[in-house]
Each structure stands twice: as C-alpha cells, then as structure tokens.
C-alpha cells in the first residue's frame, strides 16, 4: 500500500488544545465538594454570635426561652438520641428479620417480591404523610396504651404519667417504620454477600437452616448489619417532619416515653420561620450540632461498610 500524499492531507495537528469541557467538569466537581464546606461555613457563620455567647453551656443547658434570650439545647439533644435510639430498638429486629426472610426461600418468590416491594414503598412515602398518618393512627394507639400503662406500670419510670398522644414513643414508632427500609436494604446486601459456600459448609455438617443462619451467616454479615444500624440511626436523627408533627416539641426533660419531647430537627422546623435575632443564631448553633452528629454517625457507618466490603472481597 502506498502512503497517501503528505501534502493532500495534513497528518495531525498535534498541538493539544485546552479541553474546556474538562475544565467545566472539574469546576462542577469542585463545586460539589465545596457544597459540604459551604454548608458548614454558612451554619457556623450564622451560629457564631450564639457560639460566642453561650459556648459549651449551650449543649448542657435545658432552657429554650426566646423572649428572654435563654438558649440551651440539652433536652433536644436527649430527645434526638432517645427517639432515634428507641426507633432503632424497634426497627432492628424487624429489619434483620425481613432481610433474612428476603435472603431465604421460606415462601414462594412472589411473596418475597411483594414484601420487598412493600419495604421499598415505605421508603418512598413522604415524611409529612407519615406525620399525618401518625396523627390519626399512632397517636390514638399510643394514648390508649399510655393510659393503660400509667395505671398498671406506674412503677416503671419510662411509663410514668400522665400519658400524652404527642409523645416520644409515638415519634419513635413512626421513625422505626421510616428507617426500616434503610436497615433492610443494607442488611440484605450484606447477608447475600456471604459466600454460598459457607452455608453449604454448615449444612454439610448437619446444621439446621437456622443454625446455619444464626451461627454462620449472620456472624459473617455482622459488620454490614452494624453499618446498616448506624446509617439508619443517622437517618433517624435527621428525620424532621414526621417527628415534628408527633413528638410534641417540648423542651421539658422527662423520664417518661409517654411525655412530649423534642428533637434538634423538630426545633429547627418549628422555629426557624418566625425567628429573629439571637434566636436565629441559636437555631443555627443547634443546626450545627445536628449536622456534626449526623456527619459523625454517617462517617462511622460508611467506614464500617467499606471495611466489610474489603473483608468479604477476600473471602470469595
């Protein structure tokens, strides 16, 4: 084959031109990264007067009286931790059960797919609809239970009276339903990542199905289950509307789960719209605490999840 005439066709223009599209993409990526820093910066900036004025005391004081400029978020921190903690206690056994159920073949595939669909549906229902549903379904149930419990279980501090419908327990129950999809999805992933050979190994040694599940499969998936719980905890702590509509938004501290309580997110939702002056700064401070807690929890969850993926990658 003869070479083409070099004059008729310039071979190439080897000069590389600046790739503008690359720069554009890089700028977008930088902006995405900056968003997180920007959020933190704006919140800290807005919170600064309050941080200056109240310092660490803000975390340890149980007072929220805007017209006297007394601000402390202790009850809301406790309420946040308590409501999401109870929600995890309720959702964890359920979520793991469903994950196991989806990972086994107890019932025919269509049933499993239905359950899976239902759990995914639960994830897509807006928070505010959960709140509305909670007001008309869960509040009456909890009130009924509370009236009974304050009489018959009055010795137990967490059931001390009087019982309210808008209470920590109500918010926790609805939160539990809301975080169920998170726990289920991540748990199911880590259960199904356990090599099939381990299950066969257990069966070949004469294990029953549940001996294999509880003795071999669940322990192998344990880090993933822990990560699922932690990430769900992060979600529960940041969940706002349903909680704000159900928990009663009280800054009073109480041992009873049947009393109204409050969360950081609920506080923001309730007061930001009408806040002025130092109240805005203090709400920003509360937002900062919420962001830091959830970031920390999520970082921990992600780290465990990553560790799990590395570890299971080795087993296969």
């Amino acid at each position, binding site marked *: 084959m003869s070479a083409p005439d070099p004059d008729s066709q310039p071979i190439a223009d080897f000069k590389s031109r600046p790739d503008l599209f690359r720069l554009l993409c890089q700028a977008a990526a930088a902006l995405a990264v900056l968003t997180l820093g920007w959020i933190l910066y704006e919140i800290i900036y807005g919170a600064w007067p309050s941080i200056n004025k109240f310092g660490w005391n803000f975390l340890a004081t149980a007072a929220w009286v805007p017209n006297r400029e007394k601000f402390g978020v202790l009850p809301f921190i406790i309420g946040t931790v308590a409501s999401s903690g109870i929600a995890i206690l309720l959702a964890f056994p359920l979520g793991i059960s469903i994950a196991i159920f989806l990972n086994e073949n107890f019932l025919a595939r269509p049933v499993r797919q239905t359950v899976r669909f239902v759990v995914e549906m639960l994830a897509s229902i807006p928070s505010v609809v959960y709140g509305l549903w909670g007001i008309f379904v869960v509040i009456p149930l909890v009130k009924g239970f509370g009236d009974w419990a304050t009489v018959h279980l009055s010795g137990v501090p967490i059931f001390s009276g009087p019982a309210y419908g808008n209470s920590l327990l109500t918010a926790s129950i609805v939160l539990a339903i809301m975080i169920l999809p998170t726990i289920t999805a991540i748990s199911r992933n880590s259960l199904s990542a356990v090599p099939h050979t*381990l299950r*066969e*190994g257990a*069966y*070949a*040694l004469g*294990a*029953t199905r549940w001996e294999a599940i509880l003795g071999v499969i669940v322990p192998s998936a344990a880090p993933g289950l822990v990560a699922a719980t932690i990430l769900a905890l992060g979600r529960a702590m940041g969940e706002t509307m349903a909680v704000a509509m159900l928990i009663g938004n009280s800054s009073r501290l109480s041992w009873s789960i049947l009393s109204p309580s409050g969360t950081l997110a609920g506080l923001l939702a309730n007061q930001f719209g009408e806040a002025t002056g130092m109240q805005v700064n203090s709400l920003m401070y509360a937002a900062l605490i919420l962001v830091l807690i959830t970031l920390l929890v999520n970082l921990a969850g992600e780290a465990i999840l990553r560790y799990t993926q590395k570890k299971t990658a080795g087993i296969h």
Partner: protein
Amino acid sequence: MPTLVENTGQSKVSAIHELGRADFISVRDFNFFYGKKQSLFDINMDIPEKQVTAFIGPSGCGKSTLLRNFNRMNELIEGVHHSGEIQLVGKSIFDRNVEVIALRRTIGMVFQKSNPFPKSIYENVVYALRISGQTKKSLLDDCVERSLRGAALWDEVKDRLHESALGLSGGQMQRLCIARAIANRPKVLLMDEPCSALDPIATVKVEELIRELKQEFTIIIVTHNMQQATRCSDRTAFFYLGKLVEYDNTHKIFSNPSEKKTEDYITGRFG
C-alpha cells in the same frame, strides 16, 4: 445380604463389623433433574466401603451432581427432583423418616473451595458437635486434637487454635475443612474437587491424607485431575453427559478401559 436392625434401639453394633461391604452405597436407576433439564440418566453403581472411589469426567458430566445427592445437598436448589434410589447400607437416604440433618452428619463433605467459617480454628472443628449440643470441654478438646491430627494439620496449628481460621494458607484451610468434616465421625466423606484450588505442594499433602483417611472412611472424590484419580483412588467411575460410562478398578480404567469414550477421555482427546 446383611440386614440392619431396625428401630429396636440396639442398633449400634449393627453393620460396623461388615467391613469391606461392596455395596456400602448403592445407586439404583437414579435420574436427576434441574427443573425440566435432566442431568443424570439411569445411574446404577455400588460404592465399596473404606475405599476411595473417584468420579471423573468432563465439566457438566454430572459427577458433582451425583456426589451432592449422597448427602442431599442438591435439595438446597429450588426446582430439583429425582427418581430412583440411593441406599446407604441398604437403607434409602430419601426415606421419609430420614432426618436430612442426621444424614449429613453420617455423610460428611469437603468442598471445592475451602469454606472455613469466620471463626477460630477450634470453633470450626467443633462446629458440628456444638450444634448437636455438646458442651463438655474435655470432649471438645479431644475432638479438636483427634480431628486435626486426622487431617494432618495438628502440628501446624496446635499453638494457635483460637486464632481466626481465615489466617491459614489455602492448603491449611482445606485440611481444616477436612478436619471439620471428620470431627463428626462420619462414615462417608464426599470430596468435591478438594484440590482444585490448591498449589501442587498442598495438593500432595491432601492426597496423602486421602490415602490415610480411607482406613476409617469410605471416600468418594470428584476430580478433574486424572493423575490424582490414579494416585489416590481404588475405583474410578467415568461419567459423560449425565451417564455412567464405565466403572471399574482404577488400574483397569487407566490401563485398559473397555469403553472407547473412556479411552478418549483419559488420553486427553477431549474434555
């Protein structure tokens, strides 16, 4: 034909003394299906006691499928069914009264990929005893030493019994899985390509072990490696396309096979 004592409570003596039964496991007119696809056709064979029987044949010939029927592992797969009979010492393993759990303790299995549980070496070995409720420490300790010695692993791991099994080398893991299987004192040991993931040195160790273990166990080994079959088996069965083509003494199969297909396979003309 010796009969076993049935449901009378005095069974333990029974067939133990029937050393060297030629039909320790017998397969009769056995067909097996994955859904609609038939993967085993009319298998008939008798597997002798305390000998090593090798199953050879090209991939997909059904040798592993048959092996996994002996301890009913195939039942884990949805949509499988079978016809015909597999008997262990004259008793059907598919009998309605057979607890599959008990069956699997009588017929142990070692897998292609070693699959130690993410537990300590010690806990791996005693797993079967633990699930059957054994808690006496001295018994468990004895079992660990006996099984690990039996699997020629004791000297290598005796100082780190309580470390994770996942820290062992590939060959050690596979021998641990053998120890775990024999801890149960099974009568039969099924081995599904136990050396396919091992390096040559580890393979030699496991093969030596197999020859030793046949003193005590009836061993059936599926292998792709024909040298391995000649090195450690007494009987060899050649499978092709779901059928048992030829089944004879290993020496006979490899020196003077009766079937053309067998000869083609062992001489490497296909497979």
